[in-house]
């Protein structure tokens, strides 16, 4: 009885809420439609003129022409100008409007129809969001990555945040790293239209992006191996390019990997040797892991390393025959250990068997013992 009695008002309440939300939303939508088109026309009276511009006191010329077409093709096609540029409340406006604040609609639990996602909060706590909060004028807003009027979903290849366009988008600010990335094997693969090639966000994350020193960062030294492993530990992906998918597990079983796992972050991770943005295959003479450059790369930590560091494999899997002598040593020890232990167990087992067997006739022997002692 009690649960149903309790449930009833709750469902009633939620039903009421639903009705309320629906009615409010419909009124809002129906009410804005005529106003929107009117507003847009009023804005475009000036901003729709090609060549509409303003010369700032500094002498800089600001182009103020707005082509309405991209907005109409974007995800915000149904919105009008002042819904985003909300601080414009008279036409013509006297002040220069502030940059658009997307949070007016884009927050979790919004009723405006913007997607419900935790990404908004994630951005607040990201390196960019925190810089923004701290008042850094260079910190990016949503529109710096997603674009202003021509916002498209990430799945659209024309989108600024679509897979292939991410490096360019990030590169607008991180220009030096973009240059390195473009020269790297990943950047070149992307340029060739490879969909497997990682872009910035595949390693650094999107809205969750953190500075590498943050423990939660996907590119923190503690997490690099797993981040690279997202692709490099997958046989399905690596097979296509003839790369060994064991590289991540061999790293994790090496001293570098184990030290890293136990929290020694100065121990080498993938990026320590392969570099982060200008990764190149070992046969490239510019690569940090080209045999010619290995003494220098290893020598960054192991001072005095010479050319012999390049003699032999770096990623060694003792269970793989291609590991050569290491494979045979491992196999030899496996056989030695198993046979030794088998021998020892058999010896112990037989010893115990004999001791247990010897115990039985003891009872029979017991009365004899005193006679032996009584004899002399």
């Amino acid at each position, binding site marked *: 009885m009690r649960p149903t009695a309790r449930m009833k008002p709750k469902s009633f309440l939620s039903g009421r809420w639903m009705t309320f939300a629906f009615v409010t939303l419909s009124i809002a939508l129906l009410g804005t439609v005529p106003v929107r088109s009117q507003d847009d026309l009023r804005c475009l009276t000036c901003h729709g003129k090609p060549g509409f511009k303003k010369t700032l006191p500094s002498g800089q010329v600001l182009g103020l022409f707005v082509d309405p077409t991209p907005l109409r093709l974007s995800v915000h096609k149904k919105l009008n100008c002042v819904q985003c540029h909300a601080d414009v409340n008279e036409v013509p406006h006297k002040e220069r409007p502030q940059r658009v604040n997307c949070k007016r609609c884009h927050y979790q639990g919004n009723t405006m129809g913007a997607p419900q996602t935790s990404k908004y909060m994630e951005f607040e706590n990201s390196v960019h969001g925190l810089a923004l909060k701290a008042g850094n004028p260079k910190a990016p807003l949503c529109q710096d990555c997603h674009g202003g009027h021509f916002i498209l979903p990430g799945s659209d290849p024309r989108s600024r945040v679509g897979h292939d366009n991410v490096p360019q988008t990030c590169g607008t600010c991180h220009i030096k790293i973009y240059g390195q990335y473009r020269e790297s094997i990943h950047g070149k693969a992307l340029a060739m239209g490879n969909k497997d090639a990682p872009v910035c966000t595949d390693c650094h994350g999107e809205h969750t992006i953190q500075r590498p020193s943050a423990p939660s960062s996907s590119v923190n030294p503690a997490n690099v191996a797993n981040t690279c492993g997202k692709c490099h530990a997958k046989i399905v992906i690596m097979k296509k390019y003839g790369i060994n998918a064991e590289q991540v597990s061999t790293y994790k079983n090496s001293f570098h990997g184990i030290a890293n*796992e136990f*929290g020694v972050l100065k121990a080498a991770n993938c990026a320590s040797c392969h570099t982060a943005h200008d990764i190149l295959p070992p046969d490239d003479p510019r690569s940090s892991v080209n045999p010619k450059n290995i003494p220098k790369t290893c020598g960054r930590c192991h001072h005095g390393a010479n050319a012999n560091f390049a003699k*032999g494999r770096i990623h060694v899997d003792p269970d793989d025959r291609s590991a050569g002598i290491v494979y045979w040593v491992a196999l030899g020890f496996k056989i030695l250990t198993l046979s030794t232990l088998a021998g020892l167990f058999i010896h112990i087992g037989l010893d115990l068997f004999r001791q247990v067997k010897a115990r039985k006739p003891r009872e029979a022997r017991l009365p004899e013992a005193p006679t032996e002692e009584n004899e002399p």
Partner: protein
Amino acid sequence: MSDKCARGWRRADTDFVVQGVARELADALDKEIREDLTEDQLERLRDSLADSLGRDAAAGARRAHRAFEDRQRRRQKAVERRKKKALSAGSVERLSLHLRIQHMILFASTITLIVTGLPIKFHDAAISVFLIHLMGGPGVTRIIHRIGAVGLTFIGVYHIFYTMAFESGRRDFGRLIPKLQDAKDFFHQMGYFLGVKKDKPLFGRFSYIEKFDYWAVYWGLVVMITSGYILWFKVLAINQFGKSIYDIAMEAHSDEALLATLAIVIWHFYNVHFNPKRFPGSLTWWNGRMDLEEFKEEHPLEYEEMLQSEDIAKSSKEGSAGEALSSKARGDFP
């Protein structure tokens, strides 16, 4: 047949003991010179030696040699006395203090190395993470591991020195060398275990089991110390031999560590702890003593040897303890 063996050993041993280290060396030197030179030449050589060194120096050396011999003899007698005392007390000294300290250093460093090393091998296990952080993180365990490594290296090197420089070390080492008899003993023991043979094989100071233990540790030390130092001084090693030497050392170090640990935990712990005869553990490692009854059963040939030396002691009017022992051994002791 094993009787003869035992007697042969005893005589050789007694000779060895009486002569002493320095005396033996002096004899060997003397012999070598004598073989090559005639009596006259030798005389002349001695004269010229005495002249060049000065007679006082020669006399001093002779005196020192004699004092050394005396000390050796006194020490030997003290050992004999202690042995006799122990025998009459119902137990024998199986391990000298010297050996016990070696064993303690060995197991202290081995335990240190296992506790700080195996968590690295089994780094995926939750207990490894717990242990490593309990000890203060990998930076600390690395230092502890190397302290253990120095301890193990020290005892390894010292033990080699011990087996060469000390009378008891040389004697025990000689008795630890595997012989055909050990294989025979092994099959005899198997027969006994399976009920084919009624009696146990008769062991001397070291049974084939103890010999296996000893040589297993020897092999383990060689592998672990060699590979361990390659890993420790990796840049030096790789610069010299190429990166593969490091991988081989890593594999050998890791695998032999597991083998050694399992051998100790299963085999050695069974022999000294979990064997129903010894549970919960033999105290020989601590006080060096072994019960006379157990000693008679486990090392009958060594016991017999001891009796022989006791008989000699008795004939040279040394004491009544030997008498007590002999009567005890005959089984008519109350």
